[in-house]
């Protein structure tokens, strides 16, 4: 039986578009209809750009028919976390403070997607300013987890994770400062890539923490992430952190087994961490064994304590976020969601030596990871979340939300990390892992991820949303 349109991957949709067996308008109308039916339950979108989407799709069909091919996303619908500037289209950061903000210019990523002929479906929910959350005291509700609507999506790219998991879009852009792509990928059971720091321009994306922010995609398959990277990666002289390196062929390792790769498995780094569940740990051990079966040599290693990476990242993130929001935090405290405010105001308590020492520690940790571990190993497999998505009602609105994720170490070091599912918890929620690579070697983490995905069929099951509508 033919797949429903929303289950076609970017690669499959691209082949069908070029063969003329499906049109971009058909893909777009299907996506818009699905958003209309499902998003009232999921709240992944804060704005649907219906007219723009249909105009983009009609143009893509005309171009493809006349032999103009703008690349792998040509004619393919996508959506953007609502911190990416879109010229003439409201960009709110999910905040009361920017409710009427309509940028004059596109973010670099949006400009690249537009130039690549992709079709913008709309703007996606986020935690306010890509921080805090899950918050119910904002102008838009928080996105809900398509696997169980009573559960959290992770954040801050909450709408991105939810929209991809629900099959509302094949690709959604997210951002990741402490795990904001990889957390939603873990909780929502999708693929998410935090590229190397400097690989994708952040210009025109609302900053959270200048030296930790990364832009990257969430998709249903590893191949779709690789194809998206082909469009969005590249040097931007106006992003001071952008790396002046050629764009790699991100698909070059896809379809290969893992023979010859050496993979590090820092089990002690996460096995006894707060919140680690037996089923998450068992799924990680099974994943490491699977990677070995695919031909890689997997060896257990040790890393410095997670708490050290976490302290380093949190001090930098909090100081930099406060620097961005200082004026509004002091003058309009009640216009922020309570979670955002409770976390950001702490930047006022940090000293200059705290930040400088955090930067110095970052250098030590980065040197260790790259100069020792990743000199010997091609990649690292490690934990992402410690347990499946919590219920919304487990969060106490009067206290800052605590997350049991081990994602921030690789914002500190800047390495590329692929998050992908490993299976499901007993209550039917996704579990997952991270694959960490050498700087600017996204191709290897994608190779490992694609081999694992193909071997396990991890993406074969989708949320039963039609049942939720019927209920």
């Amino acid at each position, binding site marked *: 039986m033919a797949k429903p349109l929303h289950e076609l991957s970017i690669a499959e949709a691209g082949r069908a578009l070029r063969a003329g067996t499906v049109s971009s308008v058909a893909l777009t109308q299907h996506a818009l209809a699905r958003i209309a039916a499902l998003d009232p339950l999921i709240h992944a979108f804060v704005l649907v750009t219906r007219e723009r989407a249909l105009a983009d799709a009609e143009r893509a069909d005309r171009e493809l028919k006349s032999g103009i091919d703008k690349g792998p996303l040509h004619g393919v619908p996508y959506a953007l976390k609502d911190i990416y500037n879109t010229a003439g289209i409201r960009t709110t950061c999910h905040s009361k403070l920017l409710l009427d903000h309509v940028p004059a210019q596109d973010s670099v990523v949006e400009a690249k997607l537009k130039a690549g002929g992709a079709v913008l479906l709309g703007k996606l929910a986020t935690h306010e300013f890509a921080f805090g959350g899950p918050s119910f005291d904002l102008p838009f509700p928080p996105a809900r987890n398509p696997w169980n609507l009573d559960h959290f999506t992770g954040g801050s790219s909450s709408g991105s994770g939810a929209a991809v998991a629900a099959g509302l879009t094949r690709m959604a852009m997210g951002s990741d400062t402490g795990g904001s792509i990889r957390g939603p990928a873990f909780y929502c059971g999708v693929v998410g890539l935090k590229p190397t*720091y*400097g690989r994708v321009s952040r210009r025109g994306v609302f900053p959270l923490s200048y*030296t930790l922010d990364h832009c990257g995609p969430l998709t249903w398959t590893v191949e779709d992430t690789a194809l998206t990277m082909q469009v969005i990666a590249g040097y931007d002289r106006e992003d001071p952190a952008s*790396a002046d*390196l050629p764009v790699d062929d991100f698909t070059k390792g896809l379809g290969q087994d893992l023979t010859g790769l050496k993979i590090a498995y820092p089990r002690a780094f996460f096995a006894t961490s707060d919140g680690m569940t037996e089923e998450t740990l068992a799924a990680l051990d099974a994943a490491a064994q699977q990677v070995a079966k695919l031909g890689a040599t997997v060896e257990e290693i040790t890393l410095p304590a997670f*708490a*050290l990476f*976490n*302290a*380093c990242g*949190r*001090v930098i993130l*909090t100081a930099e976020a406060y620097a961005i929001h200082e004026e509004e*935090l*002091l003058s309009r*405290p*009640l216009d922020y969601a*309570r979670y955002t*405010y*409770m*976390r950001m*105001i*702490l930047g*006022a*308590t*940090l*000293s200059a*030596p*705290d930040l400088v*020492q*955090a*930067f*110095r*520690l*970052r*250098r*030590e940790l*980065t040197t260790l990871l*790259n*100069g020792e571990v990743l000199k010997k190993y091609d990649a690292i497999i490690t934990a992402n979340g410690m347990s499946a998505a919590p219920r919304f009602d487990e969060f106490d609105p*009067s*206290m*800052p939300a605590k997350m049991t994720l081990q994602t921030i170490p690789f914002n500190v070091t*800047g390495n590329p990390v692929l998050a992908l599912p490993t299976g499901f918890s007993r209550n039917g929620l996704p579990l997952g892992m991270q694959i960490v690579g*050498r*700087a*600017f*070697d996204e191709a*290897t983490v994608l190779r490992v991820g694609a081999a694992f995905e193909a071997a396990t069929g991890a993406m074969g099951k989708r949320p039963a949303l039609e049942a939720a509508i019927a209920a």
Partner: protein
Amino acid sequence: MSTPDALDQELDMLLAKAGANVPPHLKAGVLAGYRDMKAMAAMVHGSRPATHEPSNVFSLKNFRSA
């Protein structure tokens, strides 16, 4: 280790210095966050002699893949 009262006073002093008037209903949450942030800030302070400098964060020369 600060007592709860001392921690509260310390936080009040730092926030006052910054010019922040924390809404009363958020104070307990901010205080809880401050306890954690203070511990994390202490953790990043280590013994790093001057020879550790210059402290550039990333170097493409060192980290570019082979």
